[in-house]
């Protein structure tokens, strides 16, 4: 596995799409934080409380989830698009080892970059809105939550990319599952509809960023539910990858 990880690290660091998607992610996190905190400061008469600053600072997470999902998709779909997957599988014929290598490499890079970007966003936000009191522990927990959430979104993309193999198709599915369908799910009527909506992908996953609970789930249980969705996509993709011709 050590060899495979070195190989995947070399691959991911040597293409522009990695640099681009990570840059966009960081820019969205910092940009939204600056924008929202500045406008909150201008419109509110008094000081902005610390927990509200943190919340505003991490709003970029909502859109950054898509740039991370795109990177996740590309990690595998770009190999299918170019045919380079054959070279990869000739080098590592155990397909599940190859997929695991890609997942581990992606998680390491994504966790590092996204958590740092989230921490930076909180720092920028706090510098702008100057909250009277600021809980460092809460800030750290939120930054980590955002890093975890964004990494899970990237893995969702990676799973969908493995499943669909086709870049645009996988990105559209990722947008649907991360952004569009959760909103639609919120319109479901009745008690049953509400439970479904609360468990639906990012509706559950985002709880770890806000640190709040919805009716059915808390931050960590919500994240666990989101991870189950991600695992479903990856498992389905892996099953297909195992059996079909490369």
């Amino acid at each position, binding site marked *: 596995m050590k060899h495979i990880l070195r190989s995947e690290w070399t691959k991911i660091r040597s293409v522009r799409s990695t640099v681009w998607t990570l840059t966009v992610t960081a820019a969205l996190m910092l940009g939204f934080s600056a924008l929202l905190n500045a406008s909150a400061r201008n419109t509110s008469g008094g000081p902005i409380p610390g927990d509200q600053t943190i919340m505003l600072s991490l709003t970029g997470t909502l859109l950054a989830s898509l740039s991370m999902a795109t990177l996740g998709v590309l990690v595998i779909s770009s190999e299918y698009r170019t*045919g380079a997957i054959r070279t*990869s599988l000739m080098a590592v*014929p155990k397909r599940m080892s190859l997929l695991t290598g890609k997942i581990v490499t992606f998680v390491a890079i994504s966790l590092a970059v996204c958590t740092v970007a989230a921490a930076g966003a909180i720092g920028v936000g706090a510098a702008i809105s100057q909250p009277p009191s600021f809980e460092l522990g809460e800030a750290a927990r939120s930054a980590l939550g955002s890093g975890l959430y964004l990494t899970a979104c990237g893995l969702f993309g990676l799973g969908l990319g493995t499943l669909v193999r086709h870049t645009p198709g996988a990105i559209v599915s990722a947008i649907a599952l991360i952004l569009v369908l959760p909103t639609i799910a919120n319109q479901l009527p009745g008690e049953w509809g509400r439970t479904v909506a609360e468990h639906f992908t990012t509706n559950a996953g985002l709880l770890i960023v806000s640190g709040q609970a919805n009716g059915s789930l808390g931050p960590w249980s919500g994240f666990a539910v989101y991870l189950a969705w991600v695992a479903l996509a990856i498992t389905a993709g892996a099953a297909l990858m195992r059996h079909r011709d*490369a």
Partner: protein
Amino acid sequence: MTAIRARRLSKRYGGTTAVADLSFDVEPGRVTGFLGPNGAGKSTTMRMILGLDRPSGGSVLVDGRPYHELRHPLRKVGALLDAKAVHGGRSARNHLLAIAHSNGIPASRVNEVLETVGLREVAGRRIGGFSLGMSQRLGIAAALLGDPEILLFDEPVNGLDPDGILWIRTFMRELAAEGRTVFVSSHLMSEMAQTADHLIVIGRGSLIADTSVTEFIGRSSQGYVRVRSPRLAEVADLIKVGEPHPGHLRVTGMSTLEIGTITARAGIPLEELTYVRPSLEAAYMELTKDSLEYTS
């Protein structure tokens, strides 16, 4: 040890049978040409050898084992399937480095193989901008990374200029001379005749011939003797086995000496008496004519 051993190998894609009940061995120390018309199943067979496509039936072993059981496969087998199937955004060096790392091959090998194929100067350039010839060389560099005993090339000279073709041909001969197994596909007999020692010919996925190049020439097509004479009709009557063609007679099964002796006794003057050697291309066309997928 037999390098590649296929037994009753079959592959179906939905309704199309790409490979049917194919058995052959590829031996080390020589260039084995894998020959067949377009769509014969050469690339499919190579993908099955490399564990990329799953056979519908039968098996193929590399060095006695299924490909996916090789621990560091690239140190045993190097292959060039499709030179353009690479991520164009990467530099040649990073492309090779990623492949080298995956099999624990030292990074220093990357420079060595770049040197071997003559790409050292462009190692830092994006491979998306490479010409087909440069891509082929890069593909060969990748195949050589693990210093493998077994090499597979799928139509390596496609789209190359004469210099490039000569380079690859010489290179494959050298690899075989070092005792390696070289298995190379082509749909052109003329190409293989100059490179290969042994031929495996397939058509419509089935084996047509498995033979040495010399044997192939001798067996599959006979030469003939071309006879011209102002009194051709009399010659035809005399030797009986001649096949009339416009302006000349084609005789198979008799030597020039036999024909010359007969006509000399009858006092018939000859304009031409020539033995026409069998052409390899003709022999190949003859063999594969029943199995052509697409006829023009």
